[in-house]
């Protein structure tokens, strides 16, 4: 006997719900990923937070992973779906290696694969609840693309997910230029991450910056950013006002 009531109304077009599972809403989520192209390749930054609703539950989640020899994947959104995507990509890279033909999947191909996966899941109303950033270098060609949970995909010189779209992209538009040095790229990303730390409720003060070049992937050790609070306006925000606002 089935005690659990199905949530479908009579006029539903969704088909039988009982057999398949769908991600209706996310549980453990990661926030923004920010990335840019620089002189030698791609730089990507993401904090290490896994939020459980409004609780900052996990503070050492790695949200950027190398894929094959030439790519780096960063993800925001549901962490379990990101882990599933990593499994899919493992399989993809494995089959690619098994050809043993000296050829290997480049970032453009991996991005295309991810786009197809995300879009097809969206069409079945069973999305992988992530926004992905895929960056890489192959044979000197730099590539940086993004895919969302509904399959929207594009490539650009700098991308961001989640809150990064609103807070980081304006900074990137102003400060990015062709042939950034590693130091300048890191400084721009840190500027973006600091703003996100101030203004995104789900941000956590522990981040990693990853670099991918022709040589390979390096993901930095986790570290925290200094924040600035000692403005006189902060100490006395409402001098002279009645009430404290």
């Amino acid at each position, binding site marked *: 006997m089935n005690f659990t009531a199905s949530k479908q109304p009579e006029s539903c077009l969704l088909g039988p719900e009982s057999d398949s599972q769908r991600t209706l809403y996310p549980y453990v989520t990661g926030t923004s990923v920010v990335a840019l192209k620089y002189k030698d390749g791609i730089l990507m930054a993401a904090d290490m937070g896994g939020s459980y609703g409004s609780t900052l539950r996990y503070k050492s989640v790695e949200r950027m992973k190398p894929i094959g020899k030439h790519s780096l994947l960063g993800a925001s959104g549901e962490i379990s779906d990101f882990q599933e995507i990593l499994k899919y990509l493992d399989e993809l890279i494995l089959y690619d290696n098994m050809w043993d033909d000296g050829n290997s999947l480049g970032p453009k191909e991996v991005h295309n694969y991810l786009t197809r996966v995300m879009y097809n899941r969206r069409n079945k109303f069973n999305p992988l609840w992530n926004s992905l950033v895929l960056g890489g270098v192959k044979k000197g060609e730099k590539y940086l693309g993004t895919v969302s949970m509904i399959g929207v995909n594009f490539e650009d010189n700098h991308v961001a997910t989640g809150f990064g779209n609103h807070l980081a992209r304006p900074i990137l538009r102003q400060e990015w230029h062709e042939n950034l040095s590693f130091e300048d790229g890191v400084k721009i990303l840190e500027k973006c991450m600091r703003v996100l730390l101030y203004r995104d*409720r*789900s941000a956590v003060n522990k981040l990693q910056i990853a670099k991918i070049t022709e040589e390979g992937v390096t993901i930095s050790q986790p570290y*925290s950013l200094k924040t600035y609070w000692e403005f006189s306006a902060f100490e006395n925000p409402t001098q002279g006002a009645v009430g404290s606002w």
Partner: protein
Amino acid sequence: MDLDMNVNAPHSMGTTIIGVTYNGGVVLGADSRTSTGMYVANRASDKITQLTDNVYVCRSGSAADSQIVSDYVRYFLHQHTIQLGQPATVKVAANLIRLLSYNNKNMLQTGLIVGGWDKYEGGKIYGIPLGGTLVEQPFAIGGSGSSYLYGFFDQAWKEGMTKEEAEQLVVKAVSLAIARDGASGGVVRTVIINSDGVTRNFYPGDKLQLWHDELEPQNSLLDILNAPSPEPMNI
């Protein structure tokens, strides 16, 4: 979903608010984050509001609701003080808050902690959660961040603390809540009220103690990468 920032969501102070009595007065504490949806609209708000010279209130929940209630109570208390001819008591202030909260319970969404000092009863803390219940307590916690502090206070609260101990406890508690509650953050503000008067303190976010899984803040990754290598072991 991506791009769903909802900047028109009502301003809510997710918040952590605390009020603690000690041997001689009270210490009120709060974080400084005000959010609209997931965006931090104000990272340095002041949630500890003055009602009279000797009574303050910590505000949580809807920013608009808590502000309007504070304004009304400040107005009533001002008239009351003139009519009485001496400072209002903490109990009267708390009851005025209660009346507004209770009689408008269907419309208001604000939890308040009233704290102050008067010559009759000394330092007192009153909690007035949603619905308008009035509860006199030796210490009170409120706001979304308080969920993370029940265990902490069960263990750390002691009767008869000194002023310094009480303030340290409040700062530590707000800092712990900020570490885990996304809706709390920024700086820790405290207000100490006793027979000598009122003292306001400010503890910036970067000066607070580090908790589990938190790291020492750095200026930049570049500083870490360029740091000199540690000395080899000297056996």
